[in-house]
């Protein structure tokens, strides 16, 4: 149950960060043009959107860290599988488990380093340049994202060890795109 909430939360966070960052950047661009329109000038001139770029970058970095964890669960992180596909089953399983273990180790180290870094930042009053939010909040995505990713790697490893199933992302299969059975080309029909 708790896991399902976590899964859902992860999806909601990254999808809404994606949408919000797009909207904010679009609004900032639109604002830059509309401010030149004389009628709108008095209203729009007072709005300062200089912070939008920074916010967009931060949102995307947060999205990237959590999205990477989501990607472990859905198997979107690609590796080189030319060699392991040629191994016999027992070796294959061992090598794949080693690969997943590498993921666990890396994300755990990075998470810990990030946590230390953020912890030290908490005692300074460093803020981000435009938005002036405390830096440690901005950087908190490194430990949070990495630990979540580490957890996902452990999950995938556990499942693979017992069932031999890996999450597999099929780039060639896009949801909802059906291969049209009938040609939609109305023109030039013989």
């Amino acid at each position, binding site marked *: 149950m708790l896991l399902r909430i976590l899964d859902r939360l992860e999806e909601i966070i990254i999808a809404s960060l994606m949408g919000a960052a797009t909207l904010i950047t679009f609004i900032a661009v639109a604002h830059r043009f509309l401010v030149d329109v004389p009628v709108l000038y008095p209203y729009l001139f007072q709005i300062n959107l200089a912070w939008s770029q920074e916010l967009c970058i931060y949102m995307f970095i947060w999205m990237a860290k959590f999205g990477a964890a989501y990607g472990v669960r859905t198997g979107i992180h690609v590796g080189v599988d030319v060699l392991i596909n040629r191994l016999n089953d027992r070796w294959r399983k061992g090598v794949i488990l080693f690969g997943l273990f590498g993921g666990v180790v*890396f994300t755990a180290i990075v998470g810990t380093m990030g946590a230390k870094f953020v912890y030290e930042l908490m005692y300074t009053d460093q803020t981000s340049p435009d938005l002036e939010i405390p830096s440690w909040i901005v950087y908190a995505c*490194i430990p949070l994202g990495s630990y979540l990713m580490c957890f996902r790697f452990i999950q995938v490893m556990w499942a693979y060890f017992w069932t031999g199933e890996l999450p597999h992302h099929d780039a060639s299969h896009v949801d909802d795109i059906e291969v049209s059975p009938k040609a939609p080309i109305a*023109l030039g029909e013989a």
Partner: protein
Amino acid sequence: MSAALIFGLLFALMLTGMPISISLGLTVLTFLFTMTEVPIESVGLKLFSGLDNFGIMAIPFFILAGTFLTRGGVARRMIAFTTSLVGHLPGGLGLAGVAACAMFAAISGSSVATVVAIGSIMMPAMVEYGYPRRFGVGVISTSGALGILVPPSIILVLYGVSTNTSIGALFMAGIVPGVLLALMLAAVTWFVAWRNDYPRMKRATLSQQFKAFRESLWGLLLIGIVLGGIYGGIFTPTEAAAVAAVYAFIITVFVYKELKLVEVPKVLLQAASMSSMLLYIITNAVLFSFLMTHEQIPQAMAAWIVDKHFSIWMFLLVVNVILLLAGNVMDPSSILLIMAPILFPLATKLGVNPVHLGVLMIVNTEVGLCHPPVGLNLYIASSIAKMGISEITIAVLPWLCAMLVFLGLITYVPEISLWLPRLLGMI
């Protein structure tokens, strides 16, 4: 020495099937831990600062735009338009497929999106009109590779960001090679169809052509917005990408009505997950190139090359061989992110134009997309056409040969890539 160690470790880790991003990161950590005095904490900071760049953010925006466009009827209308123009020639639907791929490539930045969008409509259509299945698969899976050459291109953005080259100039540099490759692929298509006497379509009347043009206009406008906006200095590439994403959302949901509003979160999630995967490779590739610079590996290689009096001609040949080999094991974005920071200093030392190197690298990775074992375009085509990979590999051969000829042209005639950006005063 350290170069051998680093690359040895990287290859060993990659061969275990570990995600490429993780292998890059682990290599860096291991090396820094055991061999250097670099404070390991600085790595944590790099994981953030590596992405702290507005230029990189063009990537998620272009991916989002591409995800919307793949769902919408933009591809279908473009196909109808190109069919009305060239359908009556030998191999008409094939030629229309090449043209539609080129057009779709000009609004989307990925070749996967192009193959999915055009292929899922065009391949079944070609079978229905009596073309052999092999022919359709060959045409679409190779033409789809135009997606990363014709601007906007996610891979060109990656190159621009990792070598500090102007993304605008790179985009302009991709146009002439893109058109040239499209023409070469079309020529092969025409020749194969003419020899085997494949069916033609009835010639469309002028009013039919105009109607098809008008219907596809919404999609075609996007080309103008992105390229015109960047060239005219109205947008930065990242802003153009954000505008393209919003525009793509509006036309698929409100104009063509191919996507319901409730399905939008799913599109967002899909685009976010694809972008995060790429951004995660980028962070780790930044770490890796930090290690490279710290160990002064590119500098050492450059000194060696100058010392041995390598000509540009030889150097480019070696670059091609290395990249083609890399294309056998990795996807375009990983190749770019790992190789660009290494090749870039060497190339500038020898006087190769950075923009030329960028286009050259893209074309190399394109070839990798169209042959096994990792040719992603083939896998997509195989799942759309329900054909085995080995059969498809044979099917793409004529077009793949044309691509190799094209690669030779791009390598040794830099003007193909440099003419337009130079004309526009961008380099």
